[in-house]
């Protein structure tokens, strides 16, 4: 039986299409990385809400430094760690816009800790999307503030020694303590079910932004198969077994109230 591709590509067979809010540029991310999915769900939310013209994104320094090449919206590239300050500057002069930052763990939880804490504490009406893969991917796999105890990286080649290198930072639980955050959640994008939940969280974060109730903060625990030196499937399994126990998924703060565990 000969079936050509052209016989399969028909309107009635179409179950999914790429959102127009992702450009046609080839993603710079490694195959198996969660960034592409996190980009896509963010842009799907902007598309579905019909707020392309009302949305301004801030790209960080790190693997997602080129996010503006992939997201089809107006974007600003920020210096390392400064995205929440840049977002503050934009939102304060354009309060009617949806402003979000998209930051990795080194950007948000190491060099940008001050900007993160203070934007959250002031209750800026912005959304922060935080990709936590426990490593510096862009620079080649160095230790991050969120690197787990004992985890090997190029700057902790014998494993992270808590005594000399400090502890992995649960920045998301930390910002949830601040009165300026309204919705804080931790999600993942490694399974279809997780992607759907993460997308719901991003949508909720954007919807709450319009209500001017403070920072909405979505952490996405993700893999870095290249930095972790694992094939993608194994990286996702390792993430479930090692990252999720330390960084448990689920809502941390809802409607301005900490979720009781």
């Amino acid at each position, binding site marked *: 039986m000969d079936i050509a591709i052209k016989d399969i590509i028909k309107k009635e067979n179409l179950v999914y299409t790429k959102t127009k809010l992702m450009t046609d540029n080839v993603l710079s991310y490694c195959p198996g990385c969660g960034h592409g999915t996190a980009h896509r769900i963010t842009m799907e939310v902007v598309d579905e809400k019909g707020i*392309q*013209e*009302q*949305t*301004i994104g*801030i*790209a960080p320094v790190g693997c997602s*430094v*080129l996010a*503006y090449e992939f997201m*089809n*919206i*107006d*974007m*600003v*590239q*920020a*210096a390392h760690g*400064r995205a929440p*300050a*840049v*977002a*503050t*500057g*934009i939102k*304060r*002069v*354009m309060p009617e*816009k949806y402003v979000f930052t998209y930051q990795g763990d080194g950007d948000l939880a190491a060099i940008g800790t*001050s*900007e993160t804490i*203070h934007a959250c504490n002031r209750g800026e009406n912005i959304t922060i999307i935080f990709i936590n893969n426990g490593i510096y991917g862009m620079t080649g796999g160095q230790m991050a503030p969120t690197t787990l105890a004992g985890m090997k990286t190029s700057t902790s080649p014998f494993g992270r020694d808590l005594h000399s290198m400090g502890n992995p930072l649960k920045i998301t639980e930390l910002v949830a303590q601040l009165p300026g955050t309204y919705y804080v959640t931790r999600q993942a994008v490694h399974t279809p079910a997780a992607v759907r939940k993460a997308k719901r969280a991003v949508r909720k974060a954007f919807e709450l932004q319009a209500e001017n109730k403070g920072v909405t903060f979505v952490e996405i625990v993700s893999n870095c198969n290249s930095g972790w030196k694992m094939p993608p499937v194994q990286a996702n399994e390792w993430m479930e077994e090692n990252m999720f126990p330390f960084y448990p998924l689920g809502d941390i703060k809802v409607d301005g109230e900490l979720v009781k565990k």
Partner: protein
Amino acid sequence: MGELKLMKGNEAIAEAAIREGVDAYFGYPITPQSEVIEYLMMEKPHERTGMVVLQAESELAAINMVYGAASVGRKVFTSSSSPGISLYQEGISYIAGAELPCVIANVVRGGPGLGTIQPSQADYFQTVKGGGHGDYRLFTLAPSSVQEMADFIELGFEIAFKYRNPVMILSDGMIGQMMEKVELKDQKPRWSADEIKAMHGSWATIGKPESRERNIITSLDLDPHKQEKHNHHLQAKYRQMEKEEVRYETFDTDDAEYLIVAYGSSARIAQKTIMLAREKGIKVGLLRPITLYPFPEKPLAELASRMKGVLSVEMSAGQMVEDVRLAVGCSDIPVEHFGRYGGVIHSPDEVLEALEQKIIGGK
């Protein structure tokens, strides 16, 4: 005539920013310029014009808030003093690289390090030679009076938007703290969203309609050939500034045999020195650079060609004197530096003594 007030330089620059129709001020307190943000907070510009004033958690945050608000085509102003301006350098480099307009004021104090809170002009190198990383230039205006602190806000934004480049108002603790009569301009309305869209919609990240390609504010290009091309574009802009935007003032130069070059506070002091010198029969004139970058090298070279000697006077160990020497070029006349520094202000008599010893006696 505009409204006349007796104000500190720091207050005058803040009031001028409100009247200019500035959209936002972001800053962090530091002596000797904290009156800028204090004045703005007290004046409630949000009620007067809708201007945003926010005290940031650090200078790093403040300059990046400036970067953000400038990205969306707004008029943004910030101010700090030397140690804080050092922290601004990363942001200034990004702002220059991403071609964003903004006005920054440095009310300079003595350094290095925490230094002192007294006036100084020792941030000249940092301002006009770089400070941050990469091949960029910071357009620099040097006020020598409270009046110019106010006036350079309007001029600064004109230049900043004309070239999409950061503009530095380089004053010092003396100009910031002293009180003088100042004539204030009438209130300008802030730009409306429609005006910003019309004027800056081609580049500002104010939200992408379907009808145009996305606007991106970035200083990054991983392709070195594209980055070099971007640098060519920046350099062409700087050459245009050097050709069209040089500003300076001369004083008593017509019959002068000796020339003092001084900016800001030192230029005020030098004017008194010139009076004292002329009482003694020494014919001295002054060239006051108003723009430090672009430096008035041609007018200086022309003037120097008919002088017997040139004294560069600044409250530093000798920074601008390097540009003075470059402008004067290879010549037999002496070109020397004099200045007190580390927070000490030279007196007119000290400047005259230096002129007599280093230039007149040294010829």
